[in-house]
Structure formats: C-alpha cells, structure tokens
C-alpha cells in the first residue's frame, strides 16, 4: 500500500499525471494517496500494539494473492519512460467527431480569442468544432495557430495530418481529433513530431466538411512534446 500511495502521490505532484488523466483529477488522486498513507500508518500502529489474531495481514503482498499486482503500474512507469498516446493509438481509433457544444445566443460560437502575433490561438479540437459547426463562420479568412502531433495523411489527402487527443477523464477514453495540413513544404516531419502551425482554414468546396478539416499552413514550427499532451 505504501507503494501505491507513493505512486499516486508522485503522479499527483508531478506533470506525469497529465499523460494519464485530466488535470481536474489531481486533488482526488492526492486525497487518495493521503488516505492510503494514513490507513497504512494506522495499520502499522495497530500491528505494533499487537494484533496477532491478524497475522495474514501484510502491507505489500498479502500472501500469494493478487495484491502484489498493484505494484505493476509503478513498475511499468519506472521501467518504461511514460509517453503520451501518439499516432499508433490514433490509428486504432477512427476520428470521432467531438460533441458540438451548444451554439451561442446569436446562433454562432463564442468569438475567437483576439490574435496574438497575428494569429488566433485555438485548440485543435475547437478548430475542428468551429470548422464543422460554427454558423457564424468565424474561421473564414482568419489566421489561426494550433498545436498537435503529426499523423499520416488519409487516402486522398495532401500533406499530413495534425492530431490531438481529447480527454473526458483518463487516457482510456481519449478520442483523437485531426486536421489535414496542406501547403507544407516536403520533406514532411516524421509521425509523432509535435508542431505548432499557423494557417488558414480551407473550407471544403462541396460544403460538407470532412472529419479532418483542411488547413493551408503558412508556418510550421517543431516543438518538444507539451507538458499537457491532451485537450480536455
């Protein structure tokens, strides 16, 4: 139990948490770690005071049962450097359309944030939402800046895709959302490279937006993987 409390505590206090869970889970994880530590401590005290009727009780491996498996998540993290979900996981799941949030009063989405250095900063998930659903068509002609990792283009697409996972609670429920990047100069960056791109939305000529809306990029910049790899 000390091991599990330590694992939870470590995750709760470092950014590694963000590879697995939504940031809002942090206080709950911390509370669980503290509760486990307190219970373990109290068990030790009880043991000291002599609770011999209870000798099957142990604090790391209760004799031959499956409890020792609880150390596996920790072993996994220690042995293999934790990594966020990437292109492999994205390829396993079809890009699901994220839920459209309710449209605003005037029939459109809230205004884009004011431009910084000549571009509107927008999450990849929001970009896809605005491209699909914004009746105000605020993306028309707007230069946007967004972040994601490289995944291969789908058949019939130029260039490559930029993808980001959207999380509801933990990495197990993450669903990928993608844009199709056009206008970049080959050679294209390898998959799983994190990029910040600036560019403009190219609405589909047919009027029916594909799952991955097309962005014509004007600048592509490579970055290290971000602290928080998922969008929520």
């Amino acid at each position, binding site marked *: *139990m000390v091991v*599990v409390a330590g694992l*939870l505590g470590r*995750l709760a206090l470092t950014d590694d948490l963000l590879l*697995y*869970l939504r940031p809002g*889970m942090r206080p709950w*994880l911390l*509370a*669980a770690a503290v*509760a*486990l530590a307190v*219970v*373990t401590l*109290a*068990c030790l005290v*009880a043991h000291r005071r002599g*609770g011999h*009727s*209870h000798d*099957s*009780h142990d*604090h790391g491996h*209760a*004799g031959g*049962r*499956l*409890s*020792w*498996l*609880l150390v*596996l*998540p920790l*072993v*996994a*993290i220690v*042995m*293999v450097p*934790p*990594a*966020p*979900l*990437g*292109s*492999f*996981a994205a390829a*396993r799941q*079809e890009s*699901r*359309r*994220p*839920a459209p949030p*309710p449209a605003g009063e005037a029939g459109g989405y809230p205004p884009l944030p004011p431009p910084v250095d000549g571009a509107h900063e927008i999450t990849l998930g929001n970009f896809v939402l605005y491209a699909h659903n914004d009746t105000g068509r605020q993306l028309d002609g707007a230069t946007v800046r967004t972040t994601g990792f490289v995944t291969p283009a789908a058949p019939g697409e130029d260039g490559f895709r930029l993808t980001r996972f959207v999380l*509801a*609670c*933990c*990495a*197990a*429920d993450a*669903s990928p959302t993608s844009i199709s990047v056009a206008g970049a100069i080959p050679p294209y960056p390898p998959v799983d490279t994190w990029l910040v791109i600036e560019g403009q939305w190219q609405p589909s000529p047919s009027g029916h937006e594909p799952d991955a809306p097309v962005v014509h990029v004007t600048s592509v910049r490579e970055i290290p993987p971000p602290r928080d790899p998922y969008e929520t």
Partner: protein
Amino acid sequence: MGASPVERWELPAELVLAPMVAVVWFRGALAGWLDGPAIGTWLTIFVAVSVQAMPFLVLGVVLSGVIAAFVPAGALARIVPTRPVVAVPLAGLAGVALPGCECGAVPIAGRLVGRGAPPAAALAFLLAAPAVNPVVIVATVVAFPGRPEMAVARFVASLSAAIAVGLVWARVGRDEWVERARLHAAADGPGWVRFVRTASDDFLHAGGFLVVGAAAAATLRVVVPGSLLDRVGGSGAGAIVAMAALAVLLAICSEADAFVAVGLSQFSLTARLVFLVVGPMVDLKLVALQVGVFGRAFAVRFAPLALASAVLSALLVGSWLL
C-alpha cells in the same frame, strides 16, 4: 480468510495474467517483434485505467471499512425489509447517495453482504450506484447538451435494470455463490483497528483484481482495431451488440462514459443508451473486481444476468423516451 475454496478460485486469473506480466517484464527482449508504440500505448492505457480508478476504490474501501467497523453484525439484516419486492428497489435507490463510479461500489457491496444484508439488495445497490448518482447524471447532462432526456433515460434504465437483477437474484440466487464475501470476515479489535484493517484488506484485495481488469482492457484496446466499429451499421441489432461490447471492453469510468458516448455519433441514441447502461454494470475491470470480492462462481452468473438486463432495459426505455 484464506479458506480453501477461496484459494481454488485464484488460479485462472493468474493464468490469464501471466503473459501480460511477461510482456511488461521482458519488454527489452520482446521489443524486436512487438513494436514500441504498441507497448507504449498499452502501458499508457493500463496505467491510466488503474490510476483513475484508485480514488474511487479508496473511497469505496474507506466506506467498506466503516461498514465493517461500526455497523454491528446483524443490524443490516434487521434494517433491510425482509420482502425483496420492497428491499431491492430501496437498495437501488440508495445508490443515489454514493457519489462515485463503479470501482468503489464493489467492495462496499461485498461488505454489506458480509455484514448480513440480503445479497439481492446489496447487488441492486452495486449495479445502481455507479449509474444513478448525481455526479454521473450531471456529467451525462453536460455531455449531451440540449438533450436532457438522455440523462433521464439513463437514470430510469439503469435503476430498473438493477432492480430487475436484484429481484431475479432474490428468486434464484444461492448463498454459496456469494460465500466468498461472507467468508471475508472483518478483523477484530477496537473500532478504529477494525476500520483500518478492513480498509487496507479490501484495498489490497480488490486492487489486485482491478489491475488485472485494467491490463485486459488495455490489451483489447491495442489489439482490436477501431475500424471494426465502422463496419457496423449505425442502428439495428448490430449497433446494439457493438455498443454493449464496446462498453464491456473499454472499461471506462461511469463519470466519463457519457463524453465518449456523445462522440459515437454514427450510432443511434438508443444504441448509445445501451452503452451508457451496460458500462457501469458490466465491464472488464468490474468483472475482475467482482471475481475478487465475491468469487468466480458469482461472477460467471452475475455478469451475464446484469448484461442481459441492462441491454433489455436500455432498449425498452430507449424506445419509450428517446
């Protein structure tokens, strides 16, 4: 604890697990023929499922410790109405009071049975609690903006499925199927000692099975291609089966599943209701937890019953409300 029938049930779970452990352990040697990203994805999902369930499991074992330490033996049997027709629906409704997801409810239900509550009532509570509590219902409302009937349908379908299972269990259930929860006696000593020992026992015990469930869910996620879903039609029997199977295999928390369901927009609302009703009642990590707390003889009967009841109830309520 450690009675002989209990040991016998341990073996299969370990056999299932051994290859998974081997994969983690000999990662270096295996890297040649198992490509890196697959392992990385497996580990991330495995750790994510294990870790996100922990706070709820801890809440559950703290409550189960309270039950074992401070509820006198026999008190539950006196409080709970004797007639199942009354006791089971009440127990299902009592699930409203447990804010959390499914992992916490299993050790609590185990302790309730251990303290003499009728199994049928405890099981109705076990099934209802993760789906009808305010946190989950609010999450469902938020996930389906403008469609509050989805949350209503979820509440009604989950509660009635839980009650149906409880009533069936009251009729055909046998005590020896829940023997393990009964055998799992509480520690002795002063109240606080019983409390901490029960809580830590239950945590260590259920936790191991949770890890098995997380490993199975991660494995299926890595092995089964997502494109399988695309080949199933958006409605009709195929979609219902697909959504029920997905709910079992994904093993996501009942507080998060509504956000996943909303993204499965190629499926009909009723099919997605099936997903939301089945998930909190039957999924891989949950069945693993139930094997741990109640035993295998229990889980092999209970899981199919709960699955059938959940699907039927979701279909009925879906055709009525959605």
